[in-house]
């Protein structure tokens, strides 16, 4: 008897196999983290298309302001962020402010976002209140330094796989918008956002690198794998990105040309 011969199975046996397959069907919805990642990717695609002048076209140039994602997706983004931000809020109580890093999270957009009163429930209004020029909006809509298709190809050529945007910064800022009472720093005090971010982005198996960036720089963070190891890609204007090992260590410059 050959196991490859379909004639081996009786109708009852065939039905038994089909029944077992039906029972193993996956019927849960798309996981939130995957949905968030697809939304971010789609935003980048639309940005590329807008820059290219026509939907469906690929563009490798600078991205342009794009449409908001579907409004009903926003609460999902925030919900996905909530677990991370809970850590972040606790972290603000513990971290020495002198230890803050000069990341882009002290940008004007983020500061404005934290000053706007918003609902405690993640909803469309909360996101709308962030304003069109908020860092959150820039991150999500791809007006930061989002990787283009050509740059993704260059990373793939260098062995970087599973490149995906991370919602870490979204988490930090969205939580900030929902909990304005946590942002009580006055104009003469250091902004709590940097150290808040420092804690908020921690994940059990990966840690955001501490960056020393000039004021006004807007990095975008991606997760990727290289030689089987998880890395954080930090994307800034320029011909290369920096790949930081999740377990710590010096970054590796990766050319994007």
């Amino acid at each position, binding site marked *: 008897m050959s*196991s*490859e*011969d*379909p004639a*081996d*199975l*009786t109708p*009852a*046996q*065939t*039905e*038994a*196999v*089909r*029944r*077992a*397959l*039906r*029972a*193993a*069907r*996956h*019927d*849960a*919805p*798309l*996981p939130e983290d*995957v*949905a968030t*990642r*697809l*939304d971010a*990717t*789609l935003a980048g*695609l*639309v940005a590329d*298309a*807008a820059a290219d002048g*026509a*939907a*469906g*076209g*690929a563009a490798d140039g600078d991205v342009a302001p*794009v*449409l908001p*994602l*579907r409004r009903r*997706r926003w609460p999902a983004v925030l919900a996905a962020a909530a677990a991370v931000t809970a850590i972040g809020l606790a972290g603000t109580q513990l971290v020495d402010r002198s230890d803050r890093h000069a990341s882009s999270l002290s940008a004007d957009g983020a500061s404005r976002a934290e000053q706007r009163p918003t609902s405690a429930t993640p909803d469309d209004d909360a996101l709308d209140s962030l304003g069109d020029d908020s860092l959150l909006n820039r991150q999500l809509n791809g007006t930061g330094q989002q990787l283009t*298709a050509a740059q993704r190809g260059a990373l793939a050529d260098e062995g970087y*796989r*599973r490149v*995906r945007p991370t919602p870490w910064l979204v988490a930090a800022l969205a939580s900030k918008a929902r909990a304005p009472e946590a942002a009580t720093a006055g104009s003469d005090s250091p902004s709590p956002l940097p150290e808040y971010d420092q804690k908020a982005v921690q994940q059990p198996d990966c840690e955001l690198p501490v960056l020393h960036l000039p004021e006004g720089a807007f990095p975008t963070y991606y997760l990727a794998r290289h030689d089987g190891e998880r890395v954080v890609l930090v994307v800034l204007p320029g011909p290369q990105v920096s790949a930081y090992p999740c377990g710590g260590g010096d970054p590796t410059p990766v050319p994007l040309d």
Partner: protein
Amino acid sequence: MTEEQRSDADLLAAHVAGDPEAFGVLFGRHRDRLWAVALRTLGDPEDAADALQDAMISAFRRASSWRGEAAVTTWLHRVVVNACLDRVRHEKIRTADPLPDDLETRLRSPERSPADPAAVAVADERRDLVLAALAELPAEQRAALVLVDMEGYPVAEVALMLDCAVGTVKSRCARGRARLALLLGVLREGGDTPAPGNPPAAPGVPSTDPSRAPPGVQPA
């Protein structure tokens, strides 16, 4: 007419025409099912997510290639399955690897709390068996079975999704089922649903030693 009321074909046409929101609405309608197909075809959630992302990018950029000869959903499934098979063919994933031990833990929806823990445990174990066996099949057979038997699409539609003849789909399904039947013990069970746990012991192997002749008789 709101976006929600527009047909799939209308949304795809609008996207090609430059509507920046149309594709998001279209893809959002179907992505749960596309995810299910990718997940069951590849087995690993991370690989499935990568494939789904690749497929979304491909569909976004190649929307103008849709000519209306098939339903938009059929076309989307075709793009997703192609992305999955591409990943397998290019050895972006190692299909020979066993499914991760915690696969079902990762896949199981947390909101579906068990009504009967014992029954759910048995069902989960059965599902583990099926998924592990499915992972043993060639990717083309796996895709055909996922689309036909798991997702319930008609064979003719699956032929369009897989870009092959109807007979090829039937053949892949039949061969895949035959292989699964062996792996799942359906043949031993007499056609019943495979049971979890260790399979029954195989019959003893007959001795190959020559039979003993009665005393005083010389063997031939």
